[in-house]
């Protein structure tokens, strides 16, 4: 929606890239745009065409579980919200035989003659975000998919559990429409499976299976659900916790087994599988769900040939750890699942990050072709006059008019107080109706407008723009929703619908009379960023902001830059982490827009988005800086729990210690014959509650490095779940091939360190043998996880909350993954959550992209729905400030007393302050007490009217 509405984003659907020439900053792209056969400027998405279209086709959006018409829209919220004709099935296009849709289309939007079109675009950068592909059917067929109707894919379950899906959220078996009682989820279908060419882990399936299973349980509480895993890979922020909670709440059974095949026995599906103790089981289910992986996108190879970009061996875009968003071709970037399987939060992070990449590349041209709309000045005099309300009652073709008596509503509205004009409109959102609205406002000197039509959610911005064109403040409109919430939902009772429409119009008029012009608040922004933390995350963020053209203060507590990355000596990709770090440090130090403050801490951050003031303290004195935004990149620290004699016994190391050991000649490592690694020490409920995401990769990496250098040494890795997600699954497989021995241990039976004379042994229960093993151990390496840094103090300074685990809590996990709830403050790297280097670097750019937005705009614009405190009434009790979820109200001294004040730039307009103010001193823009009470009072007339009618009917 947001993308659809931006005047600076053109969405070109049904298009394919055919050619790209030129160089970074100056590309020419040739597109082929296939016809939609519906004119998007005319279509009002009323859906009449679909209702009349006689050609039924399989609904691909609903995974083929439903039917739709040849002319259709995939789902109601689709952008653009315009219907389209399926070329393959349309009777008119194929047989010239039908044109029902064109006949019933009110606004004449159908264009059967539309032809494919070629378009040429001049662009500065290219982003490939082509997503992922589907696991081939033949892989699914191995599990009986296609043969047994009750074997479904997770995508199909997604549609089935959707409340607006084909079954309206009812979970039924396709074979007999019965509710399944026992359901099995099979993980790793088309993932971690070299036999189908997909050796990688699809990363997202463990989590989505849990989500789908939970939703199924919500819909069908009696269902029993078993999930079959190879490993449970829920390594994202808060994922383990969510997973465990779901398992406990819904009683899922989690089974470690790879189910090789599915058979139909009678009406049930039989699964035969071997668990890790070597026992064979056979169980029966009513439904089997295949958790399908993320394949490489279908179009990848064609694009790779066209653009000269490299793909990895699985067909995804090849990128480096140091530059996770860049292809090998300068100016062509990649984001999302095409770069490797990933979930929504990671994809959104990459999308933000890639925006920063483009913004860096095109910094010089910033603002060149930006579209700004100009409006005439407001007619303040007219606005101040007594309300002169114009009511426009929309037919919306037949959408409203076929149910609601729109003429009656118009005549009714004409008699309401303050109404000087009441008219009907065929399509109030059409361009000519908009022009007419502007004309009528001027002609009748209207100063308040009521549009009785569709939803303000979708259409208010459009009408507001027309108001502005007519010289009226955009706040002076109120919409009565007589389509989506009236005509469409009371189609069977036109009389009641008409009454309701009249009531909603009366309520809207009552509110309109009390609307006040609201100033669009603009707050200027200081074009400087404060980046806290000089590790990989902080330095990358600082560089990106600086390369985008803004000044940066980069603050590092220690005397040198580099953070945790200083201790990492190798990467799975083969890149040298120290070189990556050196490059970062050199570029940061050379950059004329970055001022580095090492040995410095941040004290006292005050202000709000656009206008922060902070004190930077050094032992020799402090400095005050002004800045518009803050990026928190304070990192984390290695967890060093007192387990297995860590810190006392010099044969016990952490993985980071081992990284150092691996760069030395001789030393403990070279003397050791048998090396044991233990995963999750002090993590996942043992000290730290969460998974640190990168330890499994790190252990596999270090095990491989040992094996490469000393092939004869024994390396054991004791783990709970190997979480080598994405392409690092390759390294896990390679390690096993190289002879590294992986043994799973149970959380309740942790390995123990045993001393036998001078030698050490690790005791661990082996699941397959059912016995305890004593592994010789000359060197014990612990994967200890990442603990949060000292975030608490900073969290108080900046008034941003932490998660229960002590990391910064993002504003929204999926939509705003690098923004904190406090506006103008962003987070990246380990301060957000433990993660590997490539993800940190992508996230740093994401934070930089977000941080640059207010600076590039130069001001922060606040929708006028914000709260305002009448300080004459305010008693300074501070309830509002404490209740505000956004820290948008502060207490200030006015004379001798404390008064509340809204920080307009941070306010979201929720109104919790107003509803809890003891002295009613707070008013909400557009939703004042007076306006809402006027609506309620107007509602009361409906009651009175009915009451007056009733006795009459009785008398009759």
């Amino acid at each position, binding site marked *: 929606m947001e993308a659809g509405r931006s005047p600076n984003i053109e969405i070109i659907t049904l298009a394919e890239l055919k050619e790209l020439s030129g160089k970074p900053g100056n590309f020419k792209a040739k597109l082929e745009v296939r016809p939609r056969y519906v004119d998007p400027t005319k279509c009002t998405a009323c859906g009449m065409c679909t209702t009349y279209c006689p050609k039924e086709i399989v609904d691909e959006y609903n995974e083929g579980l439903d039917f739709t018409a040849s002319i259709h829209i995939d789902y109601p919220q689709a952008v653009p919200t315009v219907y389209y004709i399926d070329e393959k099935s349309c009777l008119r296009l194929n047989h010239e035989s039908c044109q029902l849709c064109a006949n019933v289309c009110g606004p004449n939007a159908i264009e059967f003659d539309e032809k494919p079109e070629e378009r040429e675009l001049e662009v500065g950068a290219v982003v490939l975000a082509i997503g992922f592909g589907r696991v081939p059917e033949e892989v699914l067929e191995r599990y009986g998919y296609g043969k047994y109707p009750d074997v479904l894919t997770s995508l199909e379950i997604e549609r089935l559990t959707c*409340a607006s899906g084909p079954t309206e959220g009812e979970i039924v078996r396709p074979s007999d429409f019965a509710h399944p009682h026992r359901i099995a989820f099979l993980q790793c279908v088309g993932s971690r499976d070299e036999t189908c060419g997909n050796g990688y882990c699809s990363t997202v399936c463990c989590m989505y299976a849990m989500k789908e299973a939970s939703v199924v349980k919500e819909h069908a509480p009696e269902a029993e659900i078993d999930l079959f895993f190879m490993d449970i890979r829920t390594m994202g922020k808060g994922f383990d916790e969510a997973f465990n909670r779901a398992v406990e709440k819904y009683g899922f059974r989690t089974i470690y087994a790879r189910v090789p095949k599915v058979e139909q026995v009678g009406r049930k599906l039989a699964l035969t599988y071997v668990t890790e103790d070597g026992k064979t089981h056979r169980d029966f289910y009513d439904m089997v769900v295949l958790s399908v992986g993320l394949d490489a996108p279908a179009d990848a190879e064609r694009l790779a040939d066209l653009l000269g970009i490299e793909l990895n061996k699985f067909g995804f875009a090849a990128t480096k750890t140091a530059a996770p968003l860049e292809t090998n071709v300068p100016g062509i970037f990649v984001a999302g699942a095409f770069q490797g399987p990933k979930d929504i939060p990671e994809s959104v992070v990459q999308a933000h990050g890639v925006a920063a990449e483009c913004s860096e590349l095109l910094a010089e041209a910033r603002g060149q072709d930006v579209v700004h709309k100009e409006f005439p000045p407001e007619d303040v005099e007219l606005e101040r006059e007594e309300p002169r309300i114009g009511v426009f009652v929309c037919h919306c073709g037949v959408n409203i008019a076929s149910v609601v008596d729109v003429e009656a509503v118009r005549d009714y509205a004409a008699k309401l107080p303050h109404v000087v004009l009441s008219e009907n409109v065929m399509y109030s959102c059409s361009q000519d109706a908009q022009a007419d609205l502007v004309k009528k406002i001027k002609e009748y000197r209207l100063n308040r407008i009521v549009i009785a039509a569709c939803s303000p959610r979708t259409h208010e911005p459009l009408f507001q723009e027309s108001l502005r064109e007519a010289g009226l403040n955009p706040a002076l409109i109120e919409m009565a929703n007589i389509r989506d919430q009236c005509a469409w*939902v009371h189609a069977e009772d036109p009389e009641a619908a008409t009454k309701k429409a009249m009531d909603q119009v009366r309520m809207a008029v009552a509110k309109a009379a009390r609307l006040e012009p609201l100033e669009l608040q603009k707050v200027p922004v200081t074009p400087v960023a404060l980046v806290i933390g000089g590790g990989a995350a902080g330095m990358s963020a600082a560089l990106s902001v600086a390369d985008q053209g803004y000044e940066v203060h980069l603050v590092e507590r220690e005397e040198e830059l580099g953070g945790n990355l200083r201790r990492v000596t190798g990467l799975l990709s083969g890149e040298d982490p120290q070189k990556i770090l050196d490059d970062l440090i050199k570029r940061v130090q050379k950059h004329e827009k970055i001022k580095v403050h090492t040995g410095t801490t941040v004290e006292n951050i005050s202000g709000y988005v656009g206008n922060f003031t902070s004190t930077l303290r050094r032992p020799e004195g402090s400095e005050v800086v002004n800045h518009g935004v803050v990026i928190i990149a304070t990192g984390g620290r290695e967890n060093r729990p007192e387990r297995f004699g860590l810190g006392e016994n010099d044969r016990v190391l952490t993985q980071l210690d081992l990284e150092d050991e691996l760069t030395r000649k001789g030393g403990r490592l070279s003397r050791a014959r048998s090396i044991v690694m233990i995963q999750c020490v002090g993590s996942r409920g043992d000290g730290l509650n969460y998974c640190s995401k990168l330890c499994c990769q790190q252990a596999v990496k270090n095990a491989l490095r040992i094996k490469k250098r000393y092939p004869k040494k024994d390396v054991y890795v004791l783990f709970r779940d190997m979480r080598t997600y994405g392409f690092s699954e390759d390294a896990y497989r390679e390690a096993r091939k190289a002879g590294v021995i992986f043994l799973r241990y149970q959380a309740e039976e942790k390995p123990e360190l045993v001393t036998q004379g001078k030698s050490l042994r690790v005791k661990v229960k082996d699941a397959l043998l059912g016995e305890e093993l004593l592994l010789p151990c000359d060197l014990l390496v612990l994967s200890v996880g990442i603990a949060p840094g000292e975030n608490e103090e900073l969290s108080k300074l900046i008034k941003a909350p932490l998660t229960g685990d002590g990391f910064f809590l993002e504003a929204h996990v999926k939509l705003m993954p690098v923004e904190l709830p406090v506006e103008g403050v962003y987070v990246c790297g380990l301060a957000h959550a433990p993660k590997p280097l490539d993800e940190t670097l992508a996230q740093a750019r994401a934070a930089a992209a977000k941080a640059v937005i207010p600076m590039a705009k130069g001001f922060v614009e606040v929708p006028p729905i914000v709260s305002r405190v009448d300080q004459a009434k305010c008693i300074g009790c501070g*309830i509002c400030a*404490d*209740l505000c979820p956004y820290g948008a109200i502060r207490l200030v001294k006015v004379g001798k007393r404390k008064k509340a004040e809204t920080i307009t730039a941070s306010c979201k307009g929720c109104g919790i302050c107003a509803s809890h103010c*003891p002295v009613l001193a707070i008013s909400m823009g557009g939703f004042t007490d007076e306006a809402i009470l006027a609506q309620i009072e107007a509602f009361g007339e409906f009651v009175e009217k009915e009451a007056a009618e009733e006795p009459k009917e009785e008398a009759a």
Partner: protein
Amino acid sequence: MAEVTKRILEAVGLNPARFRIDWASAAEAPRFVQIVTDFTEAIKKIGPLGEPEGLDKETLKLRLAAARELCTKNRFRAAYGNLARAIKKEGDYSPESIARKVEEKLVPLIKKELLEAEIKALLAKGPVSIETLLSKTGASQEEVTAVLEGLSKRGQVVREGDLWQPKTS
């Protein structure tokens, strides 16, 4: 908010089930329809406002007017706001805990203020006996006496024989 509103309705003598708060996300149209349909059905079952509760139109208006006044009173609003603040601070949003806190901190205040407003409204129409007040408000003798004493202490009402009336200056 929901709990407090329900308790106000109770104090007025209305079925608190006439007020409902529920949630549906933007994607949950069927759930929304369910909510609206269920609620409409529920209200149909309960019946017209005041009728099943045995409140005549006049009493109902009187009591709701008192409740309206209550909702704008500083004392009530401060207590309400402070309670919300305390709940947020503690972070315990369980319904039981909220209900307990509302019961402790707000319900006595709601009852007292409502009764006071009602009695004032009744007195404004002319001298009234305690018996009339008791039957109109449905409160206990103790409660009514306490309110009358409070009002008379503040010099707002006087007693003449068996009848009470507002003090005219």
